[in-house]
């Protein structure tokens, strides 16, 4: 391990320690405000202990929202992953193609520019009309939300390719295809991963919005139902679960990024 890598590792450990302290501090303040000082009634602001108890209870109980926590997680994951993966699988190659092939850029960009500013939530009524309230509609909404950042970032990433790097490849006799795969895409990878991270965030946000409007299962639905029942503990359980799953995805994405994005160029 060289000096640079050692220094990076030290920074990472330091960052980890500070993160743990920050989380501990947050939960302590929360506990003191609720369980010790009782600043608000439990049905409005439950203590961390009540939330943990509600979570344990929800592992096996379907009441009052019709599913265990696993049922809600599974429903949300199915929707989110379907929409997100489709968005990434279509968005990244499309962004790359738009940036690399002039004709694709000319053909697709006007349409993309027209669709891009439309808020994802604005698609919800249309998607429900087209696909009902099942998996299809929600996956389609998430697809739209994930697709746009993927396209934009992949496009910007490819456009960042330095001409001198392409000239190096060209003088060695690389074909256009080789230049794309050995120069342009490696250049674009940090931004492609940035796009994937942004998409992940928007996909989760959109998922909750979609499930609140039209669903019968899922973490967003769980929040919506328990709001009407004044079960703040279960709302917090759902919120923390969303946060935890989002974090797990982000950690996974970061690990993938570390594997593929080399040279200290992470976005």
């Amino acid at each position, binding site marked *: 391990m*060289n000096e*640079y890598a050692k220094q990076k590792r030290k920074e990472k450990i330091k960052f980890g320690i500070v993160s743990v302290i920050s989380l501990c501090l947050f939960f302590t303040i929360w506990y003191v405000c609720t369980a010790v000082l009782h600043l608000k009634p439990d049905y409005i602001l439950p203590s961390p202990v009540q939330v943990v108890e509600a979570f344990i209870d929800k592992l096996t109980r379907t009441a009052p929202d019709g599913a265990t926590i696993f049922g809600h997680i599974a429903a949300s994951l199915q929707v989110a992953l379907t929409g997100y993966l489709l968005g990434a699988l279509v968005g990244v190659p499309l962004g790359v193609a738009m940036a690399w092939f002039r004709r694709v850029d000319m053909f697709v960009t006007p349409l993309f520019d027209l669709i891009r500013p439309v808020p994802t939530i604005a698609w919800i009524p249309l998607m429900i009309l087209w696909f009902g309230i099942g998996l299809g509609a929600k996956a389609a909404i998430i697809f739209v939300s994930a697709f746009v950042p993927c396209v934009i970032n992949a496009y910007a990433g490819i456009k960042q390719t*330095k*001409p*001198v*790097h392409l*000239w*190096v*490849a*060209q*003088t*060695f*006799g*690389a*074909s256009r295809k*080789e230049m794309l795969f*050995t*120069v342009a895409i*490696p*250049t674009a*990878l940090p931004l492609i991963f940035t796009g994937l991270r942004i998409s992940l965030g928007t996909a989760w946000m959109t998922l909750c919005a979609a499930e609140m409007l039209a669903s019968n299962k899922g973490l967003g639905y769980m929040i919506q139902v328990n709001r009407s029942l004044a079960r703040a503990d279960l709302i917090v359980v759902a919120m923390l679960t969303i946060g935890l799953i989002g974090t797990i995805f982000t950690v996974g994405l970061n690990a993938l990024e570390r594997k593929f*994005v*080399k*040279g*200290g*160029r992470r976005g």
Partner: protein
Amino acid sequence: MSDEIKVKVSHMTKKFGDLLVLNDISFDVKTGEFLCVVGPTGCGKTTFLNCLTKLKAYELTGGEILINGEPVDLQKHNIAYIFQEYSSFPWATVEENIAYGLKVKKRPPEEIKERVEEMLQLVGLTEYRSYYPGQLSASMLQRVSIARAFAVQPELLLMDEPYGQMDNSLRYKLEDELIQLWQRTGTTVIFITHNIEEAVYLSQRILVLTNKPTSIKKEIDNNLPRPRDVTDPAFNQLRDEVTDLIKWW
């Protein structure tokens, strides 16, 4: 250096719209020769190299450039180009950068490994093989580019003011390394520079260009013995001769 012609430039003319940049330039470069091209800043030296390699889709307005008697074909001819700006790929380690050209040319893995080892040793970067460009100094970065270029054993090496951004001490060091590599490999080199001392130090022949529209003002054979001494009177005399040729003041 053999008498065989490696590069033949005949009546090379390049216009951008109505602006005539290169005006009817003709010269030959022999196999294994080290040719330096000097001229005032902005006279079209880089344009000349870009026309030669057809980079940036540069096509000649008139004339032709032949390598081994054939029109230039980057996929057929083994050419390497070292640019003025740093051109190492930031996502690749030193050894991956050096191996790049060999991979593009689809050389066998054993040969790639062997060539990379050899080049790492030649440019003194063996210890830094797993470093990324972001972790290297300016001289190391340029050494990576040089190693990457020599790794493919190019029949023609083009260098466009590769040491233009460096201070003198670093430049001298890299120039000596370049001469050693050239002597060892016998590669034909076309080296573009605006630094007259550099041209006199490195070259076997100097091509002095005029201001735009660029043409050849004079070709000067440089038979000074090696290793060359910048304080040698003969060296200074040649340097002064070239300086007088490109003086615009």
